[in-house]
């Protein structure tokens, strides 16, 4: 019990340090701010969006940026780009974050089990992971969602499957390295149950690194998801989603190049911000620095 309290207090100090380091990292804070702002706008979409995301008009189609009433122009069905981009962000974010979140839960669990239990169970988990590792991620995502067909659910499923193996690997290696640490060994020696050891000693130490790794995958997920939509394997119309918007606006790239590039720009910006925040988080959590 005493060791547990000691650990908590040490963890407390550690997180204070992380927070302090984060506060000093202006770039990370700025990116986090951009993401937060996007999130707020997207949540408040029904109140802030100037038009309906579905209401179009043939006379107003493909208007340029700065068209009166439509600051970012209109799309191929005459729908307001600002509105579509805001609503599109909702889906793009969902598609970017939820596969990583699910994969974090599943892959993290499996990886910790594999790393902690070892033996045949760990072996089995890791060998199955190896199979998925023989595919490059883009290939795997396209193959799975190509097989399952278009749709948000299938896209999330495909991406989740793509992200589970790498998360398992990270979780396994982090857990293995923690498992052999002295205090875990001593807890083991003092007869603590496996569950208690995992909960008290392993989890607090492995979740951080796995989490940071997972945040890094969000931008990958977002780009892959939009790529799927781009191939026609992601979301279904009329739901706005950045990748899908990019796909349908693609043919307008010669008439309204700037409008057609907007969804790509949104993906790019969001992805950069997620990457920056992830990097900032990692270096803040890195005790060495």
């Amino acid at each position, binding site marked *: 019990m005493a060791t547990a309290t000691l650990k908590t207090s040490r963890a407390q100090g550690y997180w204070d340090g992380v927070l302090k380091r984060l506060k000093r990292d202006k770039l990370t804070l700025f990116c986090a701010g951009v993401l937060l702002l996007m999130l707020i706008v997207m949540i408040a979409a029904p109140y802030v969006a100037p038009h309906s995301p579905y209401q179009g008009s043939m006379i107003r189609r493909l208007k340029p940026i700065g068209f009166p009433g439509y600051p970012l122009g209109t799309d191929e069905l005459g729908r307001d780009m600002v509105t579509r981009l805001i609503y599109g962000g909702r889906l793009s974010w969902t598609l970017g974050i939820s596969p990583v979140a699910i994969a974090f839960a599943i892959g993290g669990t499996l990886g910790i089990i594999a790393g902690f239990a070892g033996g045949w169970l760990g072996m089995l988990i890791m060998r199955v992971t190896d199979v998925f590792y023989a595919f490059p991620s883009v290939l795997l995502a396209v193959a799975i969602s190509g097989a399952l067909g278009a749709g948000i659910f299938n896209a999330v499923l495909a991406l989740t499957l793509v992200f589970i193996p790498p998360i398992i690997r990270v979780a396994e290696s982090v857990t293995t390295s923690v498992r052999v640490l002295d205090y875990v060994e001593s807890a083991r020696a003092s007869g603590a149950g496996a569950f208690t050891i995992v909960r008290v000693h392993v989890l607090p130490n492995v979740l951080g690194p796995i989490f940071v790794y997972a945040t890094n995958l969000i931008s990958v997920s977002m780009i892959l998801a939009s790529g799927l939509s781009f191939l026609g394997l992601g979301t*279904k*119309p*009329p739901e706005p989603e950045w990748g899908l918007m990019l796909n349908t606006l693609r*043919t307008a790239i*010669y008439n309204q190049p700037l409008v057609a590039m907007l969804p790509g720009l949104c993906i790019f910006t969001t992805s950069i911000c997620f990457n920056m925040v992830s990097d900032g988080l990692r270096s803040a959590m890195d005790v060495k620095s």
Partner: protein
Amino acid sequence: MRKLLLAATLSLVAVTAQAEKVLRIAMTAADVPTTTGLPNNGFEGMRFLGYPIFEGLVLWDLSSADKLAGLRPGLAESWEQDKADPKTWIFHLRHGVKFHDGTDFNADAVMFNMERFFNKDSPQFEPAAGGITRARAPLLASYKKIDDFTVAISTTRPASYFPFMMVYPLFTSPASFEAAGKDWAKVALLPAAGTGPFKISKFVPRVSVELEKFDGYWNKSGMAHLDKVVLLPMPEANTRMAALRSGQVDWIEVPPPDGLESLKSAGFKITTGSYPHVWPWFFNIGATNSPVADVRVRQALNYCIDREGLVSLLAGTAEPSVGWLKASDPNFGHPANHYKLDPAKGKALLAEAGFTAAKPLTFKAMISPSGSGQMLPMPMNEFLQQSLKENCNVDVSFEVVEWNTLLGAARYVPDSPNLKGSMVINVSSPSSDVSVMSRYFTSANFSPAGFNFEHWKDDEFESALAKLESATDPTEISAMTQKLHERLVDNPPWLYIVHDLNPRAMSTKVTNFVSPQSWFIDLARVDMK
């Protein structure tokens, strides 16, 4: 060393090519259609790797842009229905026709190819080509050689429109099969020989195919003007457009509508032409509790969509469809319903069928993000969704599946779980002649056995078709055709949306191209400056 040599030869070719007239065409197919004489990739495959190289006994008459393409004699100089047996047709073959490999075309060649398509026990049986041909000529029952230049072909039942089915079996030189060691897969890599105005001179799998003018073509008035045609598969519309604009090709199939304006201003020609193509929604009439089982609902929906708006979305590359045939077609007939946007009428019909503001009509449509002949399915369907909602308060949701899956769905039975409850599927289709009509709409062809996806059954239609099949008098045939079509309009199995206008974009160097009212074109007539 080999590479160097190759580069040297290539640059040599490039030099000599300046004197030659080489037309480079970007197709929409994802792959080069098969080259053995009966191409895959649907009618686009037939358009580019079928008719220019291989020919049928009967051919499409593609000389006029003003009327729906009819038939003309091909490898058969003439044909007639056997007076004694209306199920048998006698074809008199053309003399003096040579395949590209120099061998003669004769009745033996016809029999060889018939066996190739229809007899699965023959050494030359080619399953894919056979399947395609059997699907397009389902009435064909048997064939026999009468003499070296006469063959008899029988049908399962008398059908006045049978010659329309004989445009599809194409003829490949039997010698080319022998030369390739009796293996069609090897024929593909080049001894393939047809009788058409072009021969295949080079084939790079999945990349390109090159056609060369055939100097020994039998039809001296139909000789090719071009020296070479290079066909490139480019499924992405933007890739095609960029390829045209950067001068990599001279001609692209189906430029994206939103790119037309910029192509025009960049100095490219846009050609459009009416042809027998419908972009519809198929109604799932046979499903349990189908809301579209009620004919009033189907009519109502035909009054609720803004076809003109859709045409403007497509930048004029389509025309409104108010029936299976175009309104200008002599066989259109005089149906009671004249579909146009009429929300009041649509709402009234819906109300009669029990769908009101309190209980709006709601259903699901299965669509695909792309597909051959599908035009711009996503924005078009989104537009229809909006239009139905605005005009008649109809709620449509989409089940988006990939094109191959959608094609498969068209053969499911109405209550199949694979349809995911869809009451509508969006598959574009040809509407060229009665033979196609019979394949799509007779109750004998209910899915899964045939292509009557809707399980649409109309007694008047069936009896008119029976009369037409056994008729020989052209005026009777025409009257019955009109009758058939009237039924298709008044008791609509489909939501008629638009007819494609088959847009093409080409450089100004390309001359002499007319857009015939057909899925096919006559490449031999095309020339270049």
